């Protein structure tokens, strides 16, 4: 079969739509079938009304939102693996949203805490809307079957999360993310959303200022596939794997969607804002959730001191950036245990007692056993801050529909930057972000697709696909040393940690720009010695790594130019926040292989800028 003649029928066949399902199922699929019949004459490319890339909380909520509001549109969710493997399922602590308005809390207070948490880099118009929608999202998830823990009065159970004045972090044991993601996945499955598993987004195709579709790599057989779409939603998660060897996020958090958007001409907003979580296990950075501190966990140094009292009156419940810096400072002062990359402090929850730990923190107890061989019930565990969340992402043009500056392209969740989190994201706000922005993007992309009459010709998608075929052939057909590639990735992670990690200086960042250029040059000379295109995971890792290098270069450029300290971004040579010069967002773009930086004002509406004290 000629590659170009791969038509929509083949496309649908290759997605999970078996013949039996076509025959058996109800409305959603018959619409797909109708679509099938309509097509086939002149247009040879597969075409889908709304294409969602990524199936974390954001992507799944988007897909369901389209199906609910625009049942006549075809929706396909593309994912580079099985849909349930993502960062969303790893979230432990909980999801923010005020549901108890009786005891003084309000959406406005949630918004204020978020603005303050963001170190005033959050856009207040978006945040105020977000807080209101977060309340709605909790009820919607409950209605969709999410089994939250419950209070005595049968309402959803909530607890404190860092940086919040009220208990508004709703939870399901310490597996809130897993349970939320499976709720969303079940809902998508039930609502007839179709899935295209094992397909990797390579690039976005644009035509005259409009998104015409995407280019995918079918991982199962190595075929490069241009696909047309009336609208595309990017929900591919964050890029925290730039800190390859010390992060709490999954291996697939490689920022593919953001990199593709950059290549398509869009701006990467606030790329330097990478959040560190104070408590990762010392080995590799897997997460010990904030709930451990929320429930009363204590941080202890080598003198046996509960050292957080030196840094914040809120002790362990201060926001993440403050706690992370405090731990690193203790380690620098020689108050940690061990040295270098191995250094750590202790997190103690033993006083909570076995029953409470087993009931409310079973997952993190397990993590302690797995990575450190330590039982939290019996002894404090070794921890060190770990890269955790990407506040930066694709610039959003309008929060209400999560549209980008490219018509037809939408973004949601960690991939997007509607500036809800500014310079620092509060615990529990990112699941809420995924739920809220996912739904908005779904409705926005649905509306756009329902108004658009025809698909584009696909000229650019075909052209891009051709380039990718050549490139992939070149990468995989040569020979190279196996470990070379993995060593470079390891080195990359270590350099990023050392030069662009929790403490930054102009000097280190200047040097780092050069280092990243070198790594980029080396990377481009590396080949993958495996021409077998059946599920070539090394090729996928190679492509992901390329995206990570691009995004790290953006982050480094923006970090070098932001000569102030704000939220997660700490410049030791500029320790103060500088509202005169930097109360604005960084925007990095890519043109002719070069990076450019520009700035944009922060939107301030209701809350006056003030010093951030806890």
């Amino acid at each position, binding site marked *: 079969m000629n590659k170009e003649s791969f038509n929509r029928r083949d496309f649908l066949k290759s997605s*999970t739509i078996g013949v039996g399902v076509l025959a058996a199922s109800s409305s959603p699929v018959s619409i797909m079938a109708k679509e099938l019949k309509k097509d086939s004459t002149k247009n040879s490319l597969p075409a889908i009304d709304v294409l969602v890339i990524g199936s974390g909380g954001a992507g799944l909520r988007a897909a369901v939102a389209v199906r609910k509001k625009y049942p006549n549109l075809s929706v396909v969710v593309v994912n580079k693996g099985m*849909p349930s493997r993502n960062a969303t399922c790893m979230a432990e602590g909980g999801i923010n949203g005020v549901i108890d308005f009786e005891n003084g809390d309000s959406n406005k207070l949630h918004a204020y805490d978020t603005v303050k948490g963001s170190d005033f880099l959050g856009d207040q118009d978006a945040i105020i809307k977000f807080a209101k929608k977060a309340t709605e999202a909790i*009820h919607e998830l409950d209605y969709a079957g999410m089994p939250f823990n419950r209070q005595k009065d049968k309402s959803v159970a909530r607890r404190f999360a860092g940086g919040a004045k009220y208990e508004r972090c709703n939870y399901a044991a310490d597996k809130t993310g897993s349970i939320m993601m499976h709720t969303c996945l079940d809902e998508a499955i039930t609502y007839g959303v179709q899935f295209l598993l094992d397909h990797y987004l390579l690039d976005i195709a644009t035509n005259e200022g409009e998104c015409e579709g995407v280019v995918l790599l079918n991982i199962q057989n190595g075929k490069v596939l241009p696909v047309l779409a009336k609208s595309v939603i990017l929900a591919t998660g964050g890029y925290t794997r730039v800190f390859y060897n010390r992060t709490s996020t999954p291996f697939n958090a490689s920022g593919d969607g953001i990199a593709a958007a950059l290549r398509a001409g869009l701006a990467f907003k606030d790329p330097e804002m990478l959040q560190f979580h104070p408590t990762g296990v010392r080995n590799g950075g897997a997460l010990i959730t904030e709930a451990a501190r929320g429930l009363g966990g204590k941080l202890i140094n080598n003198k046996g001191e509960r050292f957080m009292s030196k840094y914040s009156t809120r002790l362990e419940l201060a926001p993440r950036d403050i706690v992370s810096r405090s731990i690193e400072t203790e380690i620098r002062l020689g108050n940690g245990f061990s040295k270098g990359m191995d250094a750590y402090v202790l997190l103690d929850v033993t006083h909570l007692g076995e029953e409470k730990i087993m009931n409310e923190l079973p997952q993190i107890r397990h993590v302690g056993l797995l990575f450190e061989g330590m039982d939290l019930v019996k002894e404090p565990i070794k921890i060190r801050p770990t890269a955790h969340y990407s506040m930066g992402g694709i610039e959003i043009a309008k929060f209400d529909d999560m549209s980008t500056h490219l018509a037809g392209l939408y973004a949601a969740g960690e991939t997007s930057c509607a500036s809800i989190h500014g310079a620092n994201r509060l615990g529990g706000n990112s699941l809420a972000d995924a739920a809220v922005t996912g739904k908005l993007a779904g409705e926005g992309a649905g509306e756009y697709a329902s108004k658009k009459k025809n698909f584009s010709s696909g000229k650019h998608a075909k052209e891009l696909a051709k380039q990718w075929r050549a490139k992939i052939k070149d990468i995989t057909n040569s020979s190279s040393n196996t470990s070379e590639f993995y060593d470079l990735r390891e080195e990359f992670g270590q350099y990023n940690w050392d030069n662009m990690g929790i403490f930054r200086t102009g000097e280190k960042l200047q040097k780092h720009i050069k280092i990243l250029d070198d790594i980029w040059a080396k990377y481009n000379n590396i080949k993958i010695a495996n021409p077998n295109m059946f599920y070539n995971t090394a090729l996928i890792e190679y492509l992901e790594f390329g995206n990570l290098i691009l995004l790290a270069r953006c982050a480094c450029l923006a970090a070098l130019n932001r000569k102030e300290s704000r939220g997660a971004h700490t410049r030791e040579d500029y320790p103060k926040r500088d509202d005169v010069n930097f109360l604005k967002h960084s925007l990095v773009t890519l043109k002719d292989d070069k990076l450019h930086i520009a700035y944009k004002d922060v939107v301030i509406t209701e809350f006056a800028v003030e010093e951030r004290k806890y």
Partner: protein
Amino acid sequence: MKIIIDRFDGVKKYIQAYILDINEVKGKTLLALLQHIKRTQDISLNFTSACRMAICGACGVRVNGHSYLACDTKMDDLLAEYDYPDTFRISPLANFKVLSDLVVDWEPSIENLRKVKPTITAKDEFSEKNGCTQTQEEVDTIKKQWDCILCGCCASECNKLEADSSDYMQPFVYTHAFRAAYDSRSKDSLKHLKPAINNGLWNCVHCQECADRCPKGISAADDISNLRVLAMKKGLKKGTGPAHAEAFLLDLENTGRLNEIYLALRSEGVLANTTKIDIAYNLMKAGKMNPLHIFGDDKIEGHEDLIKMIKAARAANKE
């Protein structure tokens, strides 16, 4: 130490051995070991993983024939479990289509989940605007099942799937049907129960392997039993399944142990069972059924209590 891996390059199957120093093995998780092999010896080795902390379900594989989550299995424990062997055999999960090396195809599983409509339809008193209410006790009845991470370990061990997958789904699919059917917020448990019945609910042979191997301690076998109880309660008694259930009870009353071969004969008749000989053969071959059981078996401990429980349950059902 020798690690033998079952390979598949998309066209042909073969095995490959990797030789490692014992120090390269110790202290690692099984996932870290696979990554180490890929990194230092063979970039073409394919497997999947994402979270490396036992929550995403990506890394299920078999070691010496049994399923494990690679990221959740320490090599030191494996060595001890198998009495310090000099070889391990690593294979993809069984009862899935293999795509490449240790990577399997999840598409059919998603379509199976679709059949049981895993999302509840909330009762009329609830709304999308205000959510639902539920007591913690009600959450607790379905809490365990929500731990399922779709790793496939249960399916890999399932005897029924191994014998014949044409009229059966992966164990976790029934677990998903259970959690929807038993949710107190749900308006209509039949929506999930009926497709479960129509897609093999009564074909489970109750070997308990799924429960044995689930890394999250979920028993799909129990969920299947409970769905059957619900089916009987709702009066869905047609077909071989419920007859099977009666025979099942009789068995338990007689010996306290399930006699698989008798059970099959009694509930479906000899004729229908001639088609099942190959199933029995497969089970015996896999060491999962003792052919001598056809001659009956000793009573198991606690049998009296079991009879009492069955009687009590029957009495309760009549009320």
